[in-house]
């Protein structure tokens, strides 16, 4: 099942690159010596190769590699392409498309023959191709099925706003008596409204973008940075299929850019140095996305030299008068706090110290603004890993919605073990029950009737057998398990300290997403 999923992503992404490759080839055909265009061609073929390697599609990866070696010659100006070369690249691209359509394999005789001929040419010097007869004219064919389009994000926002406004009309519908409305019309209106709500929710999902697309936005940047620092660097994306709100991704653009720059400028060593250290000449930056319940976890790691502790020590000694023995005992958390200080960056800039630090305060502030946290793990000669934990963002989660008094709350479904009916008049004792009404200072007492939403596991470390059972939250009524668009808390709501976010239901209604760890901590304090 996993393989199928990755194959689907491979086909989607590779097809996109190959379509773009055709466009760039058309451009380079008019300007054969344009090294930047050859760089673009190289990058696209390299991306297809990377994905092919990840799926162990050896034939495809080998063929891409052969095409890349020629790209490099034209990109560096060592050779000049001509009409025969361009034709070979067009033919090669067609062959790559056949490979991709066959999930990395080709079996048709005409494709196998073309592979044999092109591979034979690619081991030669490009100039030898000129000895061939005139390149054959390619048969013109209509482009493939048009099944996607690019849409300006503001248009999506505007559509969302418009559909929400239409939904608001439901609330202005005047009350009609049975004499005024037939049962048929009432059904029709209800159906119409439910369709409209579904449409709104689907539109909301247009705001989501795969992490893969986000990472690939930086392909060119990484290449340029690597070139300017004389590094050889590749980006790997893990968990690229995870979809995240475009608004959140947009706010992560700058921090991610800083992390990449730091990794390339200060983390990853020059190729010769890496080779001497027993590493591959090519450094690696990995962007990994994962979701744990209601959290998005983005990890950015490199396999470089790790944090430059000497530079940090120099700063600590100079600015804070810290002794060497105290510096050695510094934890990763404290190191992170130090390199995220704004004056740490300026100190490094003025003294030209080599090492990580530039812009770290910018990253820390951006993550904090998004309500997230960042952790750092660094080992000398092994590399550095930044783990960014982001709270509920504008992403879709499933949650159990319930009412307590006049309030509607939500708990991510991933945290819920079971929902039980209760009747506290009975002698049964409910373990680990949280008095939400008490915590929220709500009027009225528990009626003792309703439901208990039992959490999946204890949220804090278990110290006694009694605590093995997850926390239970009493609810007056269960609304259901449904998808929510989760939005981070505003400044005022965050002050309550008990909510993790705000959930928007399909119909535009609002619920408050409980921060279970804080609820549990508060419940323990009051017990």
């Amino acid at each position: 099942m996993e393989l199928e999923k990755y194959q689907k992503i491979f086909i989607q992404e590779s097809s996109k690159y190959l379509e773009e490759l055709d466009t760039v080839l058309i451009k380079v055909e008019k300007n054969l010596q344009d090294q930047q265009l050859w760089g673009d061609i190289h990058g696209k073929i390299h991306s297809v190769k990377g994905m092919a390697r990840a799926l162990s599609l050896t034939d495809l990866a080998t063929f891409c590699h052969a095409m890349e070696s020629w790209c490099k010659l034209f990109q560096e100006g060592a050779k000049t392409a001509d009409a025969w070369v361009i034709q070979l690249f067009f033919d090669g691209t067609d062959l790559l498309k056949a490979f991709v359509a066959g999930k990395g394999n080709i079996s048709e005789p005409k494709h196998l023959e073309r592979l044999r001929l092109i591979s034979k040419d690619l081991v030669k010097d490009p100039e030898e191709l000129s000895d061939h007869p005139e390149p054959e004219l390619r048969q013109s064919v209509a482009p493939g099925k048009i099944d996607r389009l690019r849409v300006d994000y503001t248009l999506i926002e505007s559509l969302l706003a418009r559909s929400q406004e239409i939904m608001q009309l439901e609330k202005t519908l005047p009350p009609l008596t049975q004499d005024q409305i037939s049962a048929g019309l009432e059904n029709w209106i209800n159906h119409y409204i439910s369709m409209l709500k579904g449409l709104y929710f689907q539109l909301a999902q247009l705001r989501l973008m795969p992490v893969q697309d986000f990472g690939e936005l930086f392909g060119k940047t990484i290449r340029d940075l690597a070139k300017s620092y004389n590094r050889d660097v590749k980006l790997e994306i893990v968990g690229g299929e995870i979809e995240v709100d475009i608004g959140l991704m947009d706010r992560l653009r700058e921090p991610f850019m800083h992390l990449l720059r730091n990794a390339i400028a200060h983390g990853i060593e020059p190729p010769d140095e890496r080779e001497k250290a027993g590493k591959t000449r090519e450094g690696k930056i990995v962007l990994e996305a994962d979701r744990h319940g209601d959290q998005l976890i983005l990890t950015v790691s490199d396999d470089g030299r790790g944090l430059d502790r000497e530079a940090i020590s120099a700063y600590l000694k100079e600015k804070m008068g810290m002794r060497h023995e105290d510096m050695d005992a510094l934890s990763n958390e404290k190191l992170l706090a130090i390199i995220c200080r704004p004056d740490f960056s300026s100190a490094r800039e003025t003294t030209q110290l080599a090492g990580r630090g530039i812009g770290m305060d910018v990253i820390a502030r951006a993550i904090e603004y998004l309500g997230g946290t960042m952790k750092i793990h660094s080992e000398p000669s092994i590399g550095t890993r930044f783990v960014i934990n982001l709270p509920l963002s504008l992403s879709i989660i499933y949650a159990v919605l319930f009412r307590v008094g006049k309030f509607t709350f939500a708990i991510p479904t991933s945290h819920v073990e079971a929902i039980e009916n209760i009747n506290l008049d009975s002698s049964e004792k409910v373990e680990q029950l949280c008095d939400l009404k008490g915590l929220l200072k709500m009027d009225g007492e528990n009626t003792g009737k309703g439901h208990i939403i039992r959490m999946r596991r204890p949220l804090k470390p278990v110290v006694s057998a009694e605590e093995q059972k997850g926390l239970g939250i009493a609810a007056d009524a269960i609304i259901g398990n449904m998808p929510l668009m989760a939005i981070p808390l505003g400044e005022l709501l965050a002050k309550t300290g008990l909510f993790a976010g705000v959930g928007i239901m399909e119909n535009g209604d609002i619920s408050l997403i409980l921060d279970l760890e804080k609820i549990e901590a508060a419940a323990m304090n009051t017990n």
Partner: protein
Amino acid sequence: MDIFIFEAANQCIGIEAKYIYRIADNVIIVPVPLMPACYEGLIYYRGDLFDVIDMGRLMENEATMLRDDPYIILLKWDAGKLGLIPDRIVGMQWVENESGTGTVFNKKGDTIKLMTPDEIWGKLSGLAYGA
């Protein structure tokens, strides 16, 4: 500058018109526990969440008249978003005041207290939240 004028807690309040995003009605305000008395709740309007504040309570900390279907003045500025429930909307007026704060007068000579969204936000931030 143009100011948008409304009444709350028996006084006229003016806010520079450029901060007014919309005047909304027929919007359900969702209550939130543990918030100050002036905090009426949340609304989700055109893709944005707005904290909704009863201006009368904020200014005087007193309950104003009960309203079944209040108008909500939605403010949007660079630092945030806020919905304000007035006692009554008066209208727009041009005043010679570029600061957006202090006091001006209308044609009848009534006093209008000018406020900026940041000033309102500052008042809100100073209140007690949570358990």
